[in-house]
């Protein structure tokens, strides 16, 4: 079980506290879970995903000053990395993701979300 637990370290380490990854919103844990699950089931090697993430983090750092880097949007970059990898691997085209996202965005307000298990810190 431990073999894949610590695959994100160094420059690709997620925000951690208390030895725990900090998910600030449910979508962050979903995107994290998806990326790991797809690698566990052999759709890509974890290192491939990691390389995409490293690239996106470097790009972001180049576009932002040192002062702005305090709160870098790790999971936003993570989401972009997964989107790019899925597109490049011809698993899900970026255009498909965009049109599905637009369709979901137009749902009436108050739509009941399926994945609602909160894991934000309560303190």
């Amino acid at each position: 079980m431990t073999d894949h637990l610590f695959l994100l370290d160094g420059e690709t380490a997620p925000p951690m506290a208390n030895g725990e990854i900090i998910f600030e919103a449910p979508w962050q844990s979903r995107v994290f879970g998806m990326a790991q699950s797809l690698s566990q089931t052999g759709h890509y090697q974890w290192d491939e995903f990691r390389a995409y993430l490293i690239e996106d983090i470097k790009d972001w750092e180049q576009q932002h000053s040192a002062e702005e880097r305090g709160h870098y949007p790790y999971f936003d970059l993570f989401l972009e990395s997964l989107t790019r990898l899925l597109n490049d691997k011809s698993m899900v085209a970026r255009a498909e993701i965009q049109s599905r996202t637009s369709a979901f965005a137009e749902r009436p307000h108050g739509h009941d979300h399926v994945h609602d298990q909160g894991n934000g810190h309560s303190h």
Partner: protein
Amino acid sequence: MTDHASPQSIRTEAIESLLIEKDLLTADAVDAVITTYTERVGPMNGAKLVARAWTDPDFKARLLTDATSVVEEYQFEGGQVEKLVVRECTALDHHVVVCTLCSCYPWAVLGLPPAWYKDPAYRSRIVSEPRQVLAEMGLNLSESTQINVWDSSAEIRYLVLPKRPEGSEALSEAELAEMVTRDAMIGVAQVHLP
């Protein structure tokens, strides 16, 4: 918490629905990964302390008298353990932790609290009828075992040192740590041999 309808949240949902439609992913597999990280990775810090206490009497003595400084030496990331107290379970004494006011919890050693820990029913009933609540959670304690309920606060966080399971003498510290669960360190379960 970020708004559920944030653009990232919608895009994540879109990706997940597409991956599921294409049979590349299941929601259960995603849940399993999240569970692993939230229930295993964090609590492993506490499990390491417990396993070492089981195998090293000097360490155990220090852990029971001054857990705060022991934890400082380990340098687990993050805060929330300014003052940590460890209570040892024996045949005569069982310990269980609650936070009656909110959900104070030793994150550094246990990761994120489970959902039921924040539940008003757990928070009130574990104080008024602990034996019954523990039994409902699957832990049946003998009538001769006294149950001590410790109320966490912003100032003091508690960690339960569970009883070392019988028959585990031959196991290494690392093997022992693998067996220690988050629930056992809250005091709502015991540690069992696999």
